């Protein structure tokens, strides 16, 4: 979340889409309700089903899974057409005014410029900004420099009070603006023609962002981001939205008007939030769905503001922590980039991963990632201690270099293909959580060994008894399975990091039962044994293992308090922090500003630096004072980064540093002290005066929010484009010849089959979770099993009638990969839809059952798992599988 759970109470408008928080985050859902009760906030819910969340909505729209970009793109188009946009915010806090390179092509035919049809990879060299500084139309530049030395857009000239009162529409000129004196203007045809460069004409290097960005504050240059955005989404008309999403035009317009109504007339007081979860991530365009929403929020000026933001609801108690600590293969803790084989030394790595600022020359950019060397060297010191020295590149060579993708499905694919021989699995039920379960089960059959740390006997540790495995086949399985009983969450201390980025310390409630051990003990004991083996027997490259820093008081039982102190960070020599305060060797660091790149500090994760200071464990704080009434609770637990509760909060103020809404004051510029101050911790360079025009989005080298995602930011395009899910009932109405996401890879094992309507797979299927169950755990708990006893499939009335299915009948759902059998729940909460004029049904399956559990063991289920059905397809940016929106057929079982 850019904001936090409690902050939702400050909102005026909520769009919940790609998430079902009433179902999956019932405790957090108190805050949307609080906003409704206390502020009369409106709630729009868009979902394939009428959910528990929808039951509380002011407006519900049923959408086809996988068509979210079409809906959100339609909202962008509507906001631009109606002028429901945050003009000053847009011009000054986003890259709307930046001019994009000549040769960049929008995907009218489904492809951006630079696509290589052989490798299915884009050359992104045209996905960049033009350089050249201020290209604002001369007539406008005269008034552009305001009295405070702040650039104000010409759109405001002549309107009293700085805000247009009769709407805020900016002219969108889709023709070339000839004769207006643009220095770098290209022909209009360059936008839509076939001028896109292909990789064969370009060197492999895709360039860097220019330091001196060309921009047009009038937003009228035909290649400025705003004009490209408007042109791109002009295709997303309400009619097109209806064809793709199945949402009738009038309903779409109702939602569009309601959501963007907070910016009617350009008024900036109100704030709207977008709330989502894995309903957005689990698509082959997942990252781009989220990006479309983020762009809409930038257009509406909702990021950085109380009651606004892009709010990802994390699905497990510590999944945010797992992400922060590099739960994904392509990052190191704190979102540092993972080294690649080309990073021959630490200097090369740091040069590649440390951005330089790229901005209009008159503006300022904090470019916080310029501190990357301090974060990276401190991380290496935390990893390898005294073995990380300046003369050995801080032991950079100990780090693995990623030569290819190692995402979850790639690992299992490699195991299926015999490349991965063994697997340690903790805190997950691999057979169940991945797509295409049959492939995962077969992959485990080919492994040499499997270690499962779990609470219960689960489908993964008993993959060998998956339904359909014959006794003969079972005898042939040679995988050695080690099942380690692990402690549950209530039996461990440590921190949980919640969706709001709070680190909250918890105490163990009771000791682990029987032979169960703590995860960290198991991992420590395995590590110590491996280290002993390397010590006694040597190896190809023993150094990283032998030199791993292991300073814990009890080596085989590392205290999580010690680990937390190490992650937060310590001084290794007597140093001073940037304010001149001395920090003695061995002391905890006050925050990441104290980190150094000379080896005198260590920090396991710079983002968490300051969570455990000399004042103690900040995550254990439990003060309930909230002086501002905004729900900030600054002394409850500790929020990364720097205990800041709302990120990018400088954007909650106008150019002069005054809050857009005086009633919701987060931070502001204090002229007297010459500093940014406030109720929250300013997310900004605190002494940067408004006249310096430093951008609020300090993590981007531009300093501003990215409506256009330049260069390598995204694998599949600088603007999101609607692509059909890999299995779709229709061809993409925008460009039928490029229906799917062109850079999405299909896997090629015999078990990776993909279905289409011509094979009879004509029902759209989606998967989800229930309040009553927690993943694949609670099927072992009698109380949860009493609440929802067995698996089911939700089926619309019409489809059930067509097939003669009644509620409670057994039905069989079949995809190109496998079948799933459960009872039918015939409901009015999923309705038939018209997709591109064709009557289309969708059904839904809760995921919680498998072949071990109370109901399963009692023989009350068919022992099938929901993910037997889903395809092995991942989003090209975040590598999340497409669990939502694949094709099946339905019949009576």
């Amino acid at each position, binding site marked *: 979340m850019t904001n936090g759970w409690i902050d939702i109470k400050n909102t005026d408008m909520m769009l919940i889409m790609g998430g079902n928080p*009433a179902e999956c985050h*019932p405790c957090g859902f*108190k805050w949307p309700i609080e906003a409704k009760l206390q502020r009369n906030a409106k709630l729009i819910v868009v979902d394939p089903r*009428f959910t528990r969340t929808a039951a509380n909505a002011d407006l519900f729209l049923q959408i086809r899974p996988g068509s979210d970009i079409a809906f959100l793109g339609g909202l962008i188009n509507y906001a631009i057409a109606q002028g429901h946009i945050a003009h000053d915010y847009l011009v000054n806090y986003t890259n709307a005014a930046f001019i994009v390179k000549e040769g960049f092509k929008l995907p009218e035919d489904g492809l951006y410029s630079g696509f290589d049809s052989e490798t299915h990879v884009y050359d992104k060299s045209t996905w960049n900004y033009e350089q050249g500084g201020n290209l604002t139309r001369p007539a406008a530049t005269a008034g552009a420099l305001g009295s405070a030395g702040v650039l104000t857009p010409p759109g405001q000239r002549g309107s009293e009070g700085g805000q247009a009162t009769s709407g805020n529409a900016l002219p969108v000129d889709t023709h070339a603006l000839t004769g207006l004196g643009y220095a770098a203007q290209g022909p209009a045809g360059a936008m839509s023609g076939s001028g896109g460069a292909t990789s064969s004409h370009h060197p492999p290097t895709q360039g860097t962002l220019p330091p001196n960005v060309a921009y047009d504050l009038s937003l009228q240059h035909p290649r400025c981001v705003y004009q490209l955005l408007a042109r791109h989404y002009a295709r997303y008309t309400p009619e097109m939205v209806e064809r793709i999403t199945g949402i009738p035009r009038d309903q779409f317009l109702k939602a569009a008007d309601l959501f963007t109504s907070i910016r009617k007339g350009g008024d900036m007081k109100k704030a709207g939030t977008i709330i989502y979860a894995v309903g957005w991530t689990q698509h082959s365009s997942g990252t781009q769905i989220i990006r479309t929403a983020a762009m809409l929020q930038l257009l509406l000026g909702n990021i950085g503001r109380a009651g606004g933001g892009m709010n990802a609801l994390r699905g497990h108690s510590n999944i945010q922590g797992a992400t922060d600590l590099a739960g994904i293969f392509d990052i190191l803790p704190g979102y540092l980039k993972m080294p690649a084989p080309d990073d021959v030394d630490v200097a090369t790595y740091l040069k590649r991963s440390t951005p330089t600022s790229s901005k209009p020359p008159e503006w300022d950019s904090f470019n916080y990632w310029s501190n990357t060397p301090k974060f990276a060297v401190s991380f290496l010191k935390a990893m390898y201690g005294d073995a990380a020295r300046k003369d050995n590149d801080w032991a950079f060579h100990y780090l693995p270099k990623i030569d290819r993708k190692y995402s979850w499905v790639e690992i299992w694919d490699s195991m299926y293909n015999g490349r991965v021989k063994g697997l340690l699995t903790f805190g997950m039920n691999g057979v169940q959580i991945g797509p295409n379960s049959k492939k995962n089960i077969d992959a485990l059959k080919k492994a040499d060994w499997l270690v499962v740390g779990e609470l219960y006997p689960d489908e993964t540790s008993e993959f060998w008894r998956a339904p359909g495995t014959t006794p003969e086949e079972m005898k042939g399985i040679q995988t050695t399975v080690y099942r380690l009983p692990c402690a549950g969450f209530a039996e461990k201390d440590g921190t949980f990091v919640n969706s709001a980025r709070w680190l909250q310390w918890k105490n163990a409630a009771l000791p682990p039962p029987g032979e169960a051990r703590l995860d960290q003990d198991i991992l420590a004991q395995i590590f110590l044994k491996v280290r002993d083996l390397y010590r006694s027997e040597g190896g190809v490259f023993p150094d990283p293992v032998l030199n791993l820093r292991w300073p814990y008081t009890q080596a085989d039982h590392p205290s999580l308090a010690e680990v937390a102190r190490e992650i937060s960070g310590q001084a290794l020599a007597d140093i001073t922090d940037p304010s001149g305060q001395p920090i003695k060797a061995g002391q905890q660091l006050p925050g990441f500003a104290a980190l150094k790149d000379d080896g005198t500090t260590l920090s396991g994760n710079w983002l968490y630096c300051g969570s455990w200071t000399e004042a103690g464990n900040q995550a254990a704080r439990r003060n309930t004072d909230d002086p501002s009434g905004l729900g900030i609770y600054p002394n409850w637990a500790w929020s990364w980064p720097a205990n800041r509760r709302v990120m990018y909060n400088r954007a909650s103020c106008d150019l002069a540093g005054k809050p857009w809404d005086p009633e919701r004051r987060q931070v502001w510029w204090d002229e007297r002290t010459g500093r940014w101050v406030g109720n929250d911790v300013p997310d900004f360079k605190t002494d940067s005066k408004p006249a310096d025009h430093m951008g609020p989005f300090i993590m981007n080298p531009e300093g501003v929010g990215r409506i256009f995602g330049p260069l390598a930011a995204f694998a599949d395009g600088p603007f999101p484009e609607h692509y059909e899910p890999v299995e779709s009932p229709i061809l993409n109405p925008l460009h039928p010849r490029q229906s799917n996401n062109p850079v999405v890879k299909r896997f090629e094992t015999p078990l990776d089959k993909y279905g289409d309507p011509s094979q009879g797979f004509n029902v759209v299927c989606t998967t989800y979770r229930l*309040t009553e169950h927690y993943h694949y755990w609670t099927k072992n708990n009698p109380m949860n099993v009493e*609440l929802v006893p067995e698996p089911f499939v939700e089926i619309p009335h019409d489809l059930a009638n067509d097939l003669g299915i009644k*509620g409670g009948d057994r039905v069989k759902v079949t995809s190109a990969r496998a079948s799933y059998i459960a009872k039918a729940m*015939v409901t009015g909460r999923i309705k038939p839809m018209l997709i591109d004029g064709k009557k289309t049904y969708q059904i839904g399956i809760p995921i919680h059952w498998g072949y071990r559990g109370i109901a399963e063991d009692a023989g009350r289920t068919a022992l099938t798992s929901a993910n037997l059905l889903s395809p092995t397809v991942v989003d090209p940016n975040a590598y999340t599988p497409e669990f939502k929106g694949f094709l099946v057929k339905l019949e009576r079982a």
Partner: protein
Amino acid sequence: MPAGTLQIKAISAHSGSVPGRGVQREEEVCKYIDVTTCIGCKACEVACVEWNDMPFQQTTFDNTYQTMPATTWNYWNLIKFNEHQREDGTLQWLMRKDQCMHCEDPGCLRACPADGAIVQYTNGIVDFQQENCIGCQYCVSGCPFDIPKFNSTTKKVYKCTLCSDRVGQGLEPACIKSCPTGCLKFGTKTDMRAVADARAKQLREHSGFPNAGVYDPPSIGGTHVIYVLHDITKPELYGGLPANPQIPPSYTVWKRVAKPVALLLGLFAAPVAFFHYVTEGPKEPQPPVREVPR
């Protein structure tokens, strides 16, 4: 634990006001249920089962999210899920927490012939005392909400106690404590009614529910469990909530007509007996006869 007569002033780690302040004895209590902000999460169902230490039971899939068709002797708190297609084509998924309504004029108590099996406290809680229950199930037929449930093994009838054990200690009922959204609240009847009226007004004025209102049926003297409904004119939509709950006439006739008449006749019997004694003299000892059961 403090004695039930003691009043809690403050509670550690408890957000909001001290629950039950002043309500456990003298003032009339009330459970507030805002159906319009209920998410059907069933936390209240679990809290009820766990606080009251009730055994788990096997349920069966019944084409609904609802845990079981109706409350049972060992499942006192059940959210009823109902899909409702409105005239404008939009759907509502109504979730109403069903449990004892703790009527001001309790039909169960009127119907009960067993001395002390059902009591109504001054704070309004209607509580079954199973040790006095004779298993006749008159309460079952006396209830307009189909709440009391018979256990054929113990031959007793059970229902929600409004956590009289917790309330007696100044705590809120377990269901209230567990509610994540705040759609359940607990306090004095006056306060809860005011909160409910304000919420219904907000729904009428800001949320497009012109018929929103508070369910606190006067036909049974009001209840100590009240609902805020999107549409007060159609309570039946919410899993069969009666629009005008009535105690069966047989019990009201017994209590309101026949019982006073009998009492009157009884009073009349005293002077008659005295007159008989004066005129006829004391009764002479007789051989024992079989006692007539009461």
